């Protein structure tokens, strides 16, 4: 009887704490407002995964920090007590328990990671590359793959002429299967801008894509490492000199969103920003038509563009003088004038 009187309140307190921690964790996991807008089909996958991790993390955080704060208060030395605490050296079952808990959590997270990564298209990079290299074989709009003037391309073909270049990044999702992307755009990073080459040969400093269509970016770098990041899409892939990498996504919303370089690429790395403009398909077609190059010659990349409000040129303008080039020279963002 006496024993029961002691244990019941403890169980009650534990239960209350458990419920409180659970409520707070689920609440914070759900609406923490930490992530920006979702603009790709991958974004909800990543965000849900993040929510699960935040929920579990918040629960662990509250329990451990709570235990620390409680212990500091409850087990502080009382005045004039110079004795030692009771010598408890361990507790085997407790230790097994708290080894098992994180183990179970990380196994769960591991399995979930693989699943999310798969649904993002992470496992498809090899397969879709094979398709991409049979250029004429399908009806999609193909970009001029990073031109022959590119440093990387000759090297790749020299290294593995008959084999398809191995690509890294995110490819077709299981839902897309073997389907070819609707649109392929070649992306090239150089100090300190992104260049986008469209299937018709035009080159722009900002990326236009139609909403709801399957887009593939073939990413290369001209000089040093860059990293192509679309924060609102939750996807990122390094641009590597000598390799082609890819990102494949379907934009789910119209609007203008940042394109960011996320790999240190030199003094003006921070200004290597551009934007992605997601348009209704008809607007996109109209934009393409308006900017049709005079003579479509793949590989020569002669085309200039009218960059809209906040383009590379604006970001770069303040620094242009320091690089020893005038602002007019960056405005059209002419690509590869080097050998």
């Amino acid at each position: 009887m006496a024993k029961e009187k002691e244990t019941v309140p403890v169980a009650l307190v534990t239960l209350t704490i458990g419920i409180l921690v659970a409520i707070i964790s689920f609440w914070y996991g759900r609406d923490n407002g930490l992530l920006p807008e979702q603009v790709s089909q991958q974004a909800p996958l990543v965000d849900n995964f993040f929510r699960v991790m935040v929920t579990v993390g918040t629960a662990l955080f509250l329990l451990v920090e709570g235990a620390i704060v409680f212990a500091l208060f409850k087990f502080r030395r009382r005045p004039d007590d110079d004795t030692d605490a009771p010598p408890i050296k361990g507790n085997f079952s407790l230790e097994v328990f708290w080894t098992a808990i994180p183990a179970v959590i990380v196994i769960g997270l591991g399995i979930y990671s693989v699943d999310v990564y798969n649904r993002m298209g992470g496992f498809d990079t090899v397969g879709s590359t094979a398709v991409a290299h049979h250029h004429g074989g399908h009806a999609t709009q193909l970009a001029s793959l990073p031109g022959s003037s590119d440093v990387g391309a000759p090297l790749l073909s020299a290294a593995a002429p008959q084999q398809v270049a191995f690509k890294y990044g995110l490819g077709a999702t299981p839902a897309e299967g073997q389907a070819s992307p609707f649109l392929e755009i070649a992306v090239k990073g150089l100090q300190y801008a992104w260049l986008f080459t469209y299937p018709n040969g035009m080159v722009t400093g900002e990326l236009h894509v139609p909403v709801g269509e399957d887009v593939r970016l073939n990413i290369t770098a001209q000089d040093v490492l860059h990293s192509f990041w679309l924060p609102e899409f939750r996807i990122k892939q390094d641009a590597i000199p000598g390799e082609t990498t890819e990102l494949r996504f379907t934009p789910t919303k119209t609007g203008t969103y940042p394109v960011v370089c996320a790999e240190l690429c030199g003094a003006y790395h921070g200004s290597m920003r551009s934007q992605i403009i997601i348009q209704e398909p008809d607007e996109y077609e109209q934009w393409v038509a308006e900017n049709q190059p005079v003579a479509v010659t793949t590989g020569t990349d002669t085309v200039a563009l009218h960059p809209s409000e906040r383009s590379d040129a604006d970001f770069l303008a303040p620094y242009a003088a320091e690089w020893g080039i005038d602002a007019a020279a960056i405005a059209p963002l002419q690509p590869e004038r080097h050998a």
Partner: protein
Amino acid sequence: MTQAQISMDAVSHTEHPEAWKWYHYFWYNTDHKVIGIQYLVFSFIAYLIAGVMALFMRAELYTPNSDVLDPNLYNALLTNHGTMMIFFWVVPAAIGGFGNYLVPLMIGAKDMAFPNLNAIAFWLNPPAALMLTISLWFGGAQSGWTAYPPLSLVTNNLGQSFWALAILLVGTSSILGALNFLITIYKLKIPNMRWDQLPLFCWAMVATSALALFSTPVLAAGLILLLFDINFGTGFFRPEMGGNVVIYQHLFWFYSHPAVYLMILPIFGIMSEVISTHARKPIFGYKAIAYSSLAICFVGLFVWVHHMFTSGTPPWMRMFFTISTLIVAVPTGVKIFGWVATLWGGKIRFTTPMLFAVGLLAMFVLGGLSGVTLGTAPFDIHVHDTYYVVAHFHYVLFGGSVFGLYAAIYHWFPKMTGRMYNEPLGKAHFILTFIGTNLTFLPMHELGLQGMPRRIAMYDPQFEAINQLCTYGSMLLGVSILPFLINAIWSWGWGPKAERNPWRSLTLEWQTASPPIIENFPEDPIVWAGPYDYGIDTEADEDDTTVEDMLAEVGAEAR
């Protein structure tokens, strides 16, 4: 009550002076205690310089535009801030400083196994610092502490080369040190100390040294190839010459992921010593904590690609290293739970070292959780190379390693200097540092999640408000160093004299004088209790003379 009993017939041979004079600390000396203090003071100066660099960077980031510093200088600062904090502060302070000072004392040895090698290892550091200074004189390395080619091959070749030489020198130093620690612990541990009586700091040093020995040569290889590419026309990492830039990343991270354990395992060891002593309670799960250090050391060798999830890595690699990285959370969790359980039921003394240890525990939980999220490829793809990463590693390296170093400095200050530090100043230091750390680094998580990449001098204006908050936090951190400096300098010179064992700790280093005599113990100490057996002889204390009393007598006579 104590781990050792020291016999009273002291006096050993005298090839050396009675005690070291101040000037002995400025020259070649083979005493591990002198070397330990040399490492600590040397690395602390590097810490101050690297900290000032950080303050300049935060000043630049107060506004979105590049207006305080030249962008090339900004990159030189971010590179050298990282380099110095890692290679010239945390690693040498934790391993070279406390490792050297404490390991021989804790195992009852007179010195390290190879005292001359030890001194040579230290004296590789000043030339390394000279190399780094020359590098900075020529504009500094500007490609980040990671020095990824091709950027590192095309940016300020002279600065980059001297930077690489500096790292090679400190790398060599740490290889020599690692060998010395392993052999010392294996060979010189006094025979009657069982392996399960070895203080956990020494176990942590075993794990750390093994890791340093395995991984440092790989970094050295990477840097030597880089040096050749820069200066001798080779093309290992030059894609236009058939080189491969991703290989460098593998070489670099094969070392540099374990390097984070080089920076945290010794700190974990310090945590076990400090928490158990100041909570007056045996460490909870000695074996679990010792084995988890070894487990982290082993698993830590197979996780490096989590730094390359957005690089040229195939899907299987991204998934394999996601899983292996997640596994590290298990032994780390074991340690954290073990420390919390040590606090639980203790009689906690809120001394400054204990405050720093508890502060570390509190922040490391957050850093560990964000680390788990970063370990998963699908999420890391979004936040890789952003301020989320910056936030994470400052929680584990500043909130973790630096707090641990402060805890250690305060805890062993009486032992090293023979004087007590000032408790109120220590507490002020803790409070300012704790608030400053969280103010500086907590908001950075949000910056990264929202889209701000790291290593940039100019950023999108939408991030201005949060950046200003971080800058205020960094200013507070800058101020927080003042009470520490005043305390350390004043107490070292004029503080009240410390007893041999002010914390009534049970490990061997406390059983000799403060500061210890030149060959540590008047005679080989005898171990008759575990290092954390607090509370076990409490009843005996009441009827008999306490061990403290006996020790006090012994101490008085030994002096």
